[in-house]
């Protein structure tokens, strides 16, 4: 009765092959990025690429320095974090610690729902509503600037940071709170001095993933940030982050040209940055789970 291939082993190998194909696909992204981007460094040195402030890819004597683009990305991200961290973490604390069961049952799905609004809608909203409004309100030359981009991106990332922090808060064991309350602390003191420090690394994970999301956001910054490749000196100048440079210029770059390679090299930089952020988040959240004694 013994057959060469039992039905079971066939199923197992089918699943194995599909899973493996999946992983190949995902690993392929990394490989392709580097394959298309690395040839640039035969023509432009890595140092010039990272530290040059002039980005003139289509000039007769082209220059590929991404420092001003990188500065634009960091500037917008920093601004967005000022908006999104207090709002996101504050909202998570409210939902997890203060809201009653009914409020919680409404607020949690609502936040999840708002996390699904596509970035193009945020970009559109920024372009037609927020930018003209800020221009009139603050008397600035253009509403399409780093400030508007930061504001919109910040609000966009709030649901992400909020749900991740909320998860972290819900992992804090009830016994911590009970012990603190039993010692006579008020609920507010318990929140600030016990729950928040206990959930600290979990919330940092949320913040890092928020940064990573904001930095990789493309359509919103493409539409709202103004698009000038200069090192910004104030929040009210137009900037050109890395992502919007790729999106704006890839349509014109001929395949295989230096410009094309330079855009892939920018993608490599973005990939490396988000990779670092994600690894940091992973390490932090593992430490967090160990600290609170959670298995998975």
């Amino acid at each position: 009765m013994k057959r060469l291939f039992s039905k079971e082993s066939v199923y197992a190998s089918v699943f194995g092959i599909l899973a493996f194909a999946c992983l190949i696909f995902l690993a392929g992204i990394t490989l392709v990025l580097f394959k298309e981007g690395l040839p640039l460094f035969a023509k432009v040195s890595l140092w010039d690429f990272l530290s040059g402030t002039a980005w003139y890819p289509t000039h007769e004597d082209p220059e590929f320095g991404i420092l001003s683009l990188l500065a634009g990305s960091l500037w917008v991200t920093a601004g967005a974090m000022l908006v999104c961290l207090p709002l996101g973490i504050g909202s998570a604390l409210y939902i997890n610690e203060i809201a009653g069961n009914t409020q919680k049952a409404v607020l949690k799905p609502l936040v999840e729902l708002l996390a699904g609004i596509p970035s193009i809608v945020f970009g559109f909203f920024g372009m037609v509503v927020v930018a003209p409004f800020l221009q009139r309100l603050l008397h600035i030359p253009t509403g399409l600037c780093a400030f508007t981009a930061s504001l919109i991106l910040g609000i966009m990332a709030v649901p992400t940071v909020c749900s991740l922090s909320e998860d972290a808060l819900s992992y804090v064991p009830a016994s911590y709170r009970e012990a603190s309350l039993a010692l006579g602390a008020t609920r507010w003191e318990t929140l600030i001095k016990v729950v928040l420090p206990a959930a600290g690394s979990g919330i940092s994970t949320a913040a890092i993933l928020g940064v990573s999301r904001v930095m990789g956001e493309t359509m919103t910054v493409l539409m709202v940030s103004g698009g000038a490749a200069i090192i910004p000196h104030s929040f009210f100048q137009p900037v050109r982050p890395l992502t919007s440079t790729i999106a704006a210029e890839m349509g014109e770059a001929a395949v295989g040209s230096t410009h094309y390679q330079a855009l892939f090299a920018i993608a490599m930089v973005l990939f490396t940055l988000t990779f670092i952020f994600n690894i940091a988040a992973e390490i932090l959240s593992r430490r967090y789970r160990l600290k609170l004694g959670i298995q998975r």
Partner: protein
Amino acid sequence: MRRKICVTGVFRKLFERTFARSAGNVSVSAGSYRNKQAAQKAGFFLLFCCILATLLFLGSIVYFIFAGGSKVVTWGFLTQWPRNAMTEGGIFPALLGTFYLTLGAVTVALPLGLACAVYLCEYTPGSLALNAIRIGINNLAGVPSVVFGLFGLAVFVKFFGFGVSVLSGSLTLGILILPGIISASQEALMAVPNSLREASFALGATRWQTIKKIVVPQALPGILTGVILSIGRAAGETAPILFTAAAFYTRRYPQSPFSEVMALPYHIYALMTEGTHPRQQTVIAYGSALVLLILVLLISGTAVFIRQRHRSYNG
């Protein structure tokens, strides 16, 4: 387990209501108690302001899009072709294109993602490989969507020669949502209690029978939530289809998987940045944004609804 949680919950309530308050009264002077109460009120108010501001900001986006778009969106707007250089008419081809792209993306990602999750959860016991793969998937979930667009351009459009087409766009979007589908399915499969698997094995079922008849049906609501959320994401993404699928205007319906299409999110972007009649185009863009917003909110609303129901069902 469940009873234990209930008991601690009751204890916590008791502490909050009686013990904590009286302890405050007994152990500290009345003045400092009042200060603490004031600080608590101020703090709670601050947190309330945070959630209020968040909801107001996000609500105002929904409000403005509705206010600007509701006059434009009619039955004709949904079913007609654009006319007069995008200044009149509807968005039907863009809706159709988004439908094709999303359908294609799910067709690519669902079988692959589900198979990958099943294999990782049910077949390989090694936790080292599992961890490595989980980290890899998490990382890819964080990669900017425009980078996926570049990958699609280099591989599907150029290397395989599919050109700017529905096929290239679907494959790119499929890979974009793959990590999400894998991790959601994995989470759902891992939440199925081991006792169910053991019971099934004990009755003489094979591994495949257990997966097909016990594990996957149990995990279905979780898997479904993840898949539907991914559909919403695929429908709303713009950057990945920018160079792989989307066209500002096509004369005809897509004839084959190899023709380029209009897509709703790209349509909004193009209306705002290209063309020669910015004012009239903005009106159409408002309508398109409203349609996209409703579409995506409906999709993710369904997912959230399924999750809520499943949660209350399981306690």
